[in-house]
């Protein structure tokens, strides 16, 4: 199995990469990050880009840093590096937990955080985690950088707000001020085989203020064309006691407005039932973690 021939460039800077994408627009160029989604598609010849712009030599795109109130992850940072990062463990443990469910270590060793999000597989874990974290994506094009909220970035299956000549450069995750509250997180999913794409996945964040939920964030995969936020469920949880009744009501609210389409992996009803169950499990785990936090 061989990918079709393509022209190849290895720019050293973001500006150069953007120029290459514009200059070779006729060849329907694609960006090569880790290649762990794109190269299988090229092996099957489902993707046949005429030009690949490989970002591996752009050092500035591989970094994990704190910038004021945000944790900033360069788009080319390897998933395994983010998974093990002490900064991420402190500021966004939900993301590390989501990465741990994405494929297997050999894929995560080359696969990048930015590549996964820009690929926008509707079943992927990372877009859901970034959505739950109120993340922002920074894209650079010929007119310079722009910042896009995760909810606006994810347009549909394998479809994002990125223009053809734009490059995803950074993932910005705001750090919540948890003074006086206890925070908990959880990413849980159902997949038929460990390491496969999830049929349904749920990202949950809760903040407990005494015996009340001050804030909750929930994002789901597998029930819509992209990862989605469950706003109705979040509203139902806000101000409620973190008890089984509130969790059950939130699980109902989370699936109430969804109409998943069934496929060969799972029918629509299965997905709905799984989503309800996994929202409950995610909230239970997030709440218990918040309670255990000292």
């Amino acid at each position, binding site marked *: 199995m061989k990918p079709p021939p393509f*022209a190849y460039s290895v720019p050293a800077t973001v500006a150069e990469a953007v120029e290459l994408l514009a200059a070779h627009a006729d060849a329907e160029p694609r960006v090569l990050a880790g290649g762990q989604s794109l190269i299988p598609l090229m092996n099957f010849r489902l993707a046949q880009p005429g030009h690949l712009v490989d970002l591996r030599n752009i050092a500035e795109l591989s970094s994990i840093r704190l910038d004021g109130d945000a944790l900033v992850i360069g788009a080319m940072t390897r998933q395994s590096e983010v998974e093990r990062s002490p900064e991420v463990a402190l500021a966004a443990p939900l993301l590390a937990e989501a990465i741990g469910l994405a494929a297997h270590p050999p894929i995560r060793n080359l696969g990048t955080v930015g590549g996964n999000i820009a690929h926008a597989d509707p079943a992927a874990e990372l877009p859901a985690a970034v959505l739950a974290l109120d993340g922002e994506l920074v894209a650079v094009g010929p007119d310079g950088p722009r910042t896009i909220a995760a909810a606006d970035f994810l347009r549909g299956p394998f479809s994002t707000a990125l223009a053809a000549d734009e490059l995803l450069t950074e993932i910005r995750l705001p750090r919540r001020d948890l003074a006086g509250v206890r925070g908990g997180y959880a990413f849980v999913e159902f997949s038929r085989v460990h390491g496969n794409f999830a049929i349904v996945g749920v990202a949950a964040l809760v903040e407990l203020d005494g015996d009340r939920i001050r804030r909750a964030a929930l994002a789901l995969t597998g029930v819509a064309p992209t990862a989605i936020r469950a706003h109705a469920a979040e509203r139902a949880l806000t101000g409620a006691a973190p008890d089984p009744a509130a969790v059950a009501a939130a699980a109902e609210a989370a699936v109430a407005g969804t109409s998943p389409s069934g496929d060969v992996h799972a029918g629509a009803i299965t997905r709905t039932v799984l989503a309800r169950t996994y929202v409950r499990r995610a909230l239970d785990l997030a709440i218990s973690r918040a309670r255990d936090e000292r």
Partner: protein
Amino acid sequence: MKPQKHPIDVTVNGRRHSTEVEPRLLLVDFLREELGLPGTHVGCEHGVCGTCTVLLDGASIRSCITFAVQADGAEVSTVEGLARGAELHPLQDEFWDKQGLQCGYCTPGMLMRAQEILAANPDPTPEQVREGISSNLCRCTGYQFIVEAVLAAADRLRDGTAAGARENTEVRS
């Protein structure tokens, strides 16, 4: 149209290769066909089965979904680099001893992945080994003997026991 070639400088099992490759050349094909190292197997060719696993700068990767150009400037380790002459690596030795292979198709990938698992955690539990090798498919053994082999190799590597210095080596000669 003559295919465009791209220069790469890659070290494989300690030996440096400066050459030019077509950008679409997969790392596994570079290893097997250009360097004559057929120990790395081609399986599913879309990153699922794991038999093409090699180490890139010490980290396991799927060489069937990696372009050779992506290994430019890196060190690649393949199954051919495990043994020292006729002396098998403890992992290879224990796969033999514990019957961690039957058809052998998954073995090169299993060995390279096991190397990374033991480098990160020299004293894993059976569950950790099982979880670790879940990235690699084996259709013969049911995995049990592979787990036993990796655990036995871990013991020997921790003890610093030289490969082949055990009692039952004579059964192989």
